[in-house]
C-alpha cells in the first residue's frame, strides 16, 4: 500500500526531516510509527497525504508514484486516505453529522447514501444518537471518535493517524486503538504515529522507529 524508496525531505532552511528512508507497508497491514518529537513522524505522514513533497526519492501509494502526481489529482489521492489528527480538526460550527458527512459531500454522494453511511460510521465508533450534537459538547475521547468516523466514512483503503491518543487518558487510548484494530481486521491498512510506547508495546504490530529522520529498523513490515 505504501512504499518509500530512498526518500529524503529537506525543509527550506536546511533542516533534514527525513534521510534516505526505505519503507514498505503491505496492503492490509497495521504498523506504528514511533520516535521522539521532531524525529520526522509527521513529515513521513505528510508525504503520504501529499501535504509535503519529497525532496529526493519516491513515495508510492497504492501503486501510484506520488512524486508524479499533478496538483489537480491531489484531492483524489487524499480521498483514498482517512486521516486522523491529534487535535481532531473538527468543524465546531457544524453538527457531528455534518462533520462526518463532509468527505461524502466532497465526493458528491447522494443525500440518502450520505445519511446511511454517516449513521453506519457513527455506529461503528459508538456515537449513534449524537448526530445532532455539536462537537464542543462532546468529551475529548468522543471528539476523537467523531474524527475517526469522518476518516472511515467513505471506506478508505488507508488510515493515517498522527498521535490519535495524544490528549487522551490510558483507558480512552486503549479504546481508540481497539477501534483501529477493528478497521484493520476488515482489510484497511493502518499506520499510526504515536509515542505512547507503553500502549503500543502491548499490541502485536510492527513498529517503525524514526530517529533524527532516519529509520532505525528495516522498514519492512510483514504482510498479513
Amino acid at each position: 500500500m505504501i512504499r518509500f524508496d530512498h526518500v529524503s525531505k529537506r525543509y527550506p532552511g536546511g533542516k533534514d526531516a527525513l534521510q534516505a528512508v526505505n519503507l514498505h507497508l503491505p496492503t492490509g497491514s497495521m504498523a506504528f510509527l514511533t520516535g521522539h518529537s521532531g524525529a520526522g513522524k509527521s513529515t513521513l505522514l505528510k508525504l503520504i497525504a501529499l501535504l509535503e513533497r519529497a525532496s529526493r526519492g519516491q513515495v508510492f501509494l497504492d501503486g501510484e508514484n506520488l512524486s508524479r502526481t499533478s496538483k489537480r489529482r491531489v484531492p483524489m489521492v487524499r480521498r483514498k486516505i482517512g486521516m486522523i489528527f491529534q487535535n481532531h480538526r473538527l468543524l465546531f460550527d457544524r453538527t457531528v453529522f455534518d462533520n462526518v458527512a463532509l468527505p461524502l459531500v466532497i465526493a458528491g454522494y447522494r443525500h440518502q447514501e450520505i445519511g446511511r453511511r454517516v449513521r453506519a460510521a457513527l455506529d461503528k465508533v459508538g456515537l449513534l444518537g449524537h448526530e445532532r450534537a455539536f462537537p464542543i459538547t462532546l468529551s475529548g475521547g468522543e471528539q476523537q471518535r467523531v474524527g475517526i468516523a469522518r476518516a472511515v466514512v467513505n471506506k478508505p483503503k488507508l488510515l493515517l493517524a498522527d498521535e490519535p491518543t495524544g490528549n487522551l487518558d490510558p483507558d480512552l487510548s486503549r479504546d481508540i486503538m481497539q477501534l483501529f484494530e477493528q478497521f484493520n481486521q476488515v482489510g484497511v491498512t493502518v499506520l499510526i504515529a504515536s509515542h505512547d510506547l507503553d500502549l503500543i508495546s502491548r499490541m502485536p504490530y510492527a513498529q517503525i522507529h524514526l530517529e533524527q529522520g532516519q529509520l532505525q529498523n528495516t522498514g519492512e513490515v510483514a504482510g498479513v
Partner: protein
Amino acid sequence: MRLPRPVHNYLVRHAQVALNSLGRLYRTPFASLMTIAVLGIALALPSGLYLLTGNLQKLGAQWDGGANLSLFLHKSVSVSQAQALRKKLAQWPEIASVQLITPEQALAEFRELSGFGQALDLLDDNPLPAVLAIKPGAQYSTANAAAALTEKLRALPEVELAQLDLKWVKRFNAIVEIVQRAIWVMAALLGLAVLLIVGNTIRLEIQNRREEIEITKLIGATNRFIHRPFLYAGLWYGLFGALFGALLVELALLQLLDPVRRLAGLYRSSFSLDMLSAGELFYLLAGGAFLGLLGAWIAVGRHLSAIEPR
C-alpha cells in the same frame, strides 16, 4: 424530460451550495445588510442618474419648439401658392406641423410688437414675405436630422431662405451628452467599488473560515468545491445589492414624482417621470450579480490558493 443522473446530481449540488451560502448571509444579518446597503448605494447612484438623464432626453424631445424651422418664401409666391405648399409639406413624415404666416399677418404682428407702427404706415407696400413656421417630428428634432431637413426644404423653388433655430437644441443635447458621459465614468468607478467591496468581504470571509478550508482540503476537497460557496456568496451580495439599489432609485423617484408633475402642470405639459422599466431592472440585477461574482472570483483566486493544509 429527465436529466441524466450526473447532470442532475451536479445541479442539485449547486442548488445546495447556493442555498447554503444564502443561509450563511442570513445567519449574520447585520454584517450582510451593511455590505448589501453599501453595494446598493454604489449601484443606485449611476442607475438613478441614468434614469434622470433618460427623463431629461424625453423632456427635450417633448419640448415644444425643440427645433424650429422658418421658411421665408419668395415675394413672388402668392398667398394661395403658399397655402398649397403648406398643405404639401404637412404631408411629409418629417414634419409635425406647418403654420402659414401671410405677409399681412406678419405685418400686423410686427406693427403690434415692434412699436414702428407709424413708420410702417409710410411704406407703400408690405415688404414682408410669407413665412412657413415648421415643427419637425420628434425623431427629426435632433441636430443632425433637423439640419438635413433644412437642406431638403431649402431646395424647394418657392423658398428664398430656410432658417433653422437649433442653438438651444444643440446646447441641450451637448449638456445631456456630457452628463451621460460623466455618468458612464461614474458607473465605471462605482462598478470598480462594487468589485472591491465584494472582494474584500469575501477575503474576510475566507480568513474567517481558514480552518474549515484547510480541513476540507485535507480530506480531499477540490479547489472548485472550496471556491463554490464563496462565489455564490459574491453572487448573492451583488444580486441583493442591486435589488436594494433598485429600491433606492424607485424611492427617490417616487419622492420626485409629485413635484415634477406639479411643475409640468404649470407649463401645461403632460410630462411625467419614467420609473425603472422591467428591462432596466433586469440589467441592473444582472449587472450587480455579475459584479458580485467577479469580485468574489478575484478574491477567491488571490486568497484561497494561499491556504494549504499543514
